[in-house]
């Protein structure tokens, strides 16, 4: 979900015979997930979705400072989403932007329901997400990486959260949009989901579509999320085998 102003090509190329990168409409970009990539962190993961690369590291649970920010009945989940300066075609200036502030918030809210925060009162769990390369879908890649990093850190979770965006170009519904598609889509709908409990933890939408289409997109996204979820589990199993 790029800032809407970047979606310059809306309606430009309605009749798309097949996807730019030859994928099927319900096919994910090449997906790679690896747990345990940052030795210093308590848990970490790298997720590559096409050209988009997200790395997540988890520190904690650790005592929260300053103390007045502690919550007496549960841990605070803190998320920091950052695009590294060379992640995009035009260099990103370091520092928080309005866009990254919003993504921090929705990312935190997408992950929170999966974590037994109540087991760690007065603590903080820090989740740092760095987008090393950005080619659409950075927030969903970040959530996928963060979810694996949390599990890698041994933090008790209800389920893994997996995430992907869906859209519609012409008459076709499609998932896991690449950058060119994100510029064309009539709507961009990032979804995060916990497959075991069948709950939606992230839902945003930019665009202009009838409700039926939006529902269709959400359902398609959820199907793809099941695939991502399997890869997340595989990555964790590979990590646990290695020890």
């Amino acid at each position, binding site marked *: 979900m790029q800032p809407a102003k970047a979606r*310059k090509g809306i309606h430009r190329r309605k009749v798309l015979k097949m996807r730019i990168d030859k994928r099927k409409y319900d096919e994910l970009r090449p997906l790679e997930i690896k747990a345990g990539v940052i030795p210093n962190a308590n848990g970490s993961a790298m997720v590559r979705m096409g050209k988009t690369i997200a790395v997540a590291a988890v520190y904690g649970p650790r005592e929260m400072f300053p103390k007045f920010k502690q919550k007496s009945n549960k841990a605070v989940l803190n998320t920091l989403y950052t695009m590294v300066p060379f992640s995009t075609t035009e260099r990103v200036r370091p520092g928080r932007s*309005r*866009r990254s502030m919003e993504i921090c918030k929705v990312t935190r*809210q997408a992950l929170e329901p999966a974590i037994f925060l109540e087991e760690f009162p007065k603590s903080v769990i820090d989740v740092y997400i760095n987008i090393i390369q950005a080619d659409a879908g950075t927030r969903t890649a970040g959530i996928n990486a963060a979810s694996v990093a949390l599990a890698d850190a041994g933090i008790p979770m209800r389920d893994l959260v997996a995430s992907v965006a869906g859209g519609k170009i012409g008459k076709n519904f499609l998932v896991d949009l690449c950058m060119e598609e994100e510029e064309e889509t009539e709507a961009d*709908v990032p979804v995060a989901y916990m497959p075991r409990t069948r709950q939606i933890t992230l*839902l945003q939408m*930019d665009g202009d579509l009838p409700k039926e289409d939006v529902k269709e997109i959400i359902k398609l996204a959820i199907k793809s999320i099941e695939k991502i979820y399997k890869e997340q589990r595989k990555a964790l199993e590979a990590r646990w085998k290695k020890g």
Partner: protein
Amino acid sequence: MEKRVIKMIMQDQYVLDMAAEGKRVDGRKHDEFRKIEIEKNPLEKPEGSARVRIGKTDVIVGVKMEVGEPFPDKPDEGTLMVGAEFSPMASPDFEAGPPREDAVELARVVDRGIRESGAIDVKKLCIKKKEKVWIVMIDIQIMNHDGNLFDASTLGAITALLNTKIPEYDEKKDEINYEKKTKVLPVTCKPVSVTFAKIGNQIFVDPGLDEENVEGGRITVTTKDNGNICAIQKGSPVPFTLDEIEKIFDMAIEKGKELRKLV
């Protein structure tokens, strides 16, 4: 301070207990908004303005028009900017300082509703291709926060835009004459947002602050005159099921029609 916290915890429990019985603390129905009052152009300085009250929530929106350069990839389109200030005046929970996450989210969701719906005909705001276009600056000022800032702000923004007049611009002198506001801003439709709280299993429209304070779900859906959805923002850690989302879409479209009549 402590008293306030204890009071809030007790109030939270009360809200939850009521919700468990399918009731709201102020007796409203699930799909009932609080009283809405809209003032059109209460101010003279901005090019357009609106004051929206939903219950005790009170928001002023002002629109200022400036001239600037277009974005390189859209050389013939005017631009839009939305800002939101959570003045510490409006709530004991707001702090002075640069806008926090919540204010940024509010501004961005209002922005997306207006931008994605194509409510402003930005092509008509081009003065000279590649060089000069009108910049529409929408600022949201929260006066009193009693819940559901999203709907009050979106209502305020679209009302202010509908009442905005463009000042005269002298291209040669590169001067805007703010004394003469003549042309109406080209507004093509009325995006309106409807916000829901999920408390326990209940879905309530237009949550009051007491309902927002309960750690429940919040979701905002912005719709257009033709019923299309143009923005969604799930804004809380509580998850929703697909069934709930579908029900919410229906309610958002229905209530949106009612709100649109007020603008």
